[in-house]
């Protein structure tokens, strides 16, 4: 295992940099002294990217993932050393209601970016491309946790879009000998997630307002939850792995050590908020195709030395503190 590379003086493009996970990654890269490029996009007023003033520390590129020429220009003119591709339609329900924009952004956006990287001779071993896939690509699996070798069995449009991204990205490493890696992370939570259709943001927002959190399911569906700062560590570890040629083209799972039921997550968050509210359990049908999602993170632990550093309790305390202050 080797320590993640320092990014001092490197030009790093982070698509989705204004987003939830992106803002944490951008912050880390800036701390390491990187020059960080993000596509120009209006960041929501209450986004972490704005609140922390990351906006004024990044260079905002006129760049559209659906505009191939704009990608090529930015990669060439700004001598980009590394790309973290996090931009995507990330809300499963939205993607299912309106699949075309999700397919366009997720699939076409990714192949445009990879193709621009290929054309821009982004093939040198020190110029790395990390593509965000998702644990959703596994769909329904017989045995859990699933290792990276599990077949991809996505069902709905969002999950399928991520599986396409995943297969396309890896094929660039194999076919065009490019330093590309794919991440498959489980449910990432932490301060700055403004997608309130998700369990942690929705529950935190309710608690900040003094309301009881609502659990739409019966509280039993299990996921492995990954704290966002651990997710950032995983992104950096995966990027560092690309210094080794024989690790090009791999997909890397990263998730919490054990799956946790929705009810337990919410109870832990209630404790973190210091209240004694009881969650409201609706007991409805989950819209998700699986009862349990759990990825096996043995590879990234063993080969890249990554470990989640944050236990659920302290991570949820930190998370709650952000919502209490940020909202």
């Amino acid at each position, binding site marked *: 295992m080797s320590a993640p590379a320092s990014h001092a003086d490197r030009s790093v493009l982070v698509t989705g940099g204004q987003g939830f996970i992106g803002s944490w990654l951008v912050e880390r890269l800036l701390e390491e002294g990187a020059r960080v490029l993000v596509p120009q996009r209006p960041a929501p007023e209450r986004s972490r990217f704005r609140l922390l003033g990351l906006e004024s520390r990044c260079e905002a590129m006129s760049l559209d993932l659906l505009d191939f020429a704009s990608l090529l220009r930015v990669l060439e003119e700004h001598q980009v050393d590394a790309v973290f591709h996090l931009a995507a339609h990330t809300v499963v329900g939205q993607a*299912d209601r309106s*699949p075309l924009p999700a397919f366009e952004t997720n699939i076409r956006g990714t192949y*445009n970016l990879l*193709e621009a990287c290929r054309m821009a001779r982004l093939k040198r071993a020190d110029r790395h491309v990390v593509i965000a896939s998702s644990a959703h690509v596994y769909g329904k699996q017989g045995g859990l946790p699933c290792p990276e070798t599990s077949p991809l069995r996505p069902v709905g449009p969002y999950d399928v879009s991520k*599986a*396409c991204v995943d297969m396309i990205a890896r*094929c660039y490493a194999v076919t065009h000998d490019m330093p590309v890696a794919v991440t498959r992370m489980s449910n990432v939570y932490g301060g700055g997630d403004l997608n309130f259709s998700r369990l942690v943001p929705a529950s935190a927002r309710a608690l900040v307002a003094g309301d009881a959190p609502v659990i739409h399911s019966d509280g039993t569906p299990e996921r492995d939850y990954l704290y966002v700062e651990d997710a950032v560590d995983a992104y950096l570890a995966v990027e560092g792995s690309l210094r080794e040629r024989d690790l090009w083209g791999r997909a890397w799972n990263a998730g919490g050590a054990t799956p946790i039921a929705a009810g337990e997550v919410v109870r832990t968050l209630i404790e973190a908020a210091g209240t004694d509210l009881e969650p409201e359990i609706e007991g409805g049908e989950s819209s998700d195709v699986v009862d349990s999602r759990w990825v096996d993170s043995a590879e990234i632990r063993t080969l890249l030395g990554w470990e989640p550093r944050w236990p659920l309790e302290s991570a949820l305390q930190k998370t709650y503190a952000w919502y209490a202050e940020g909202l």
Partner: protein
Amino acid sequence: MQAGATFQDTTVLVTGGQGFIGSWLAERLLGMGARVVVPIRDVHPEKRFHAEGIGERCILEPADVRDYDALLRILTKHEVQTVFHLAAQPIVGIANRSPLSTWESNVAGAYSLLEACRTKGTLGAPIERIVVASSDHAYGPHADSPLREDSPLEPRYPYDVSKGCADMIAASYASRYGMPVAITRLANVFGGGDRNWSRIVPDTARSLARGQRPVIRSDGSPQRDYLYVEDAAEAYLSVAESLDRSELHGRAWNASLGRPVSVLELVRRLIAVSGSDVEPDIQGEGTPHAEADSLLIDSGAIRDELGWAPRWSLDEALTRTYAWYGRNVG
């Protein structure tokens, strides 16, 4: 089972109708009394679709399968009931050299068309049957063949990945929106009209028609599963008819002759049916990068559940095929 009256007096869209397999399918549909609509991007007058008078019996619409608006307009204007989506960039080597145009046609083309079909349904006139051409390549390299339809899709190279993507996207429209979508995964299709000279059958047939020795780039040993184009067209029709049974929506269907044929055997048989006695020129290079060495698929499902079976033996199919090249390339 023969596709009977299902398509008579109905309107059928065949994307890729101008192409090799599409032209046979369009011709068959015309023969059954269907109105056949074919979107056309580039025009290739030399193709059998035009040269054999198929195109003039179809309704041609200028459109790129990437163009959702144009597709929706065509589906609506002609009140299309059945869609066969065959349009694709079909050449493995081109996909390696030019991935972008392959992603655009094969992946974005698939979701643009499916989305146009979904939208048409929300406007109150759902498409009744949608058949999307995937490929046996979508499976990727597998150690254990023959492959059944529930084998995982593990494509590695661009063409294979593009088909794997289209395959998964198509299935998601059936599972999430309850649309009547089916997927075909056909083996290597050969027959008259294939002008992709990088493929073994067209290349060999052309050499023979010109009185030249056929060249085998490999050592002749790689085995593939093949399917004659008229049997392929019949498989498409059977799969489309299966969609009248809602329990079969979202299924993928393999179809092939069902036995491994080495390149050398194929070339020797083609030489024999052409009435020649030349020896092939075996160059003995390895299997080209990005092509599976041997891939066999199991067509048990389409045979047992849909009653499809190849009508032509390999020799009969090669005889018909060679006749076409003999007439058309000299």
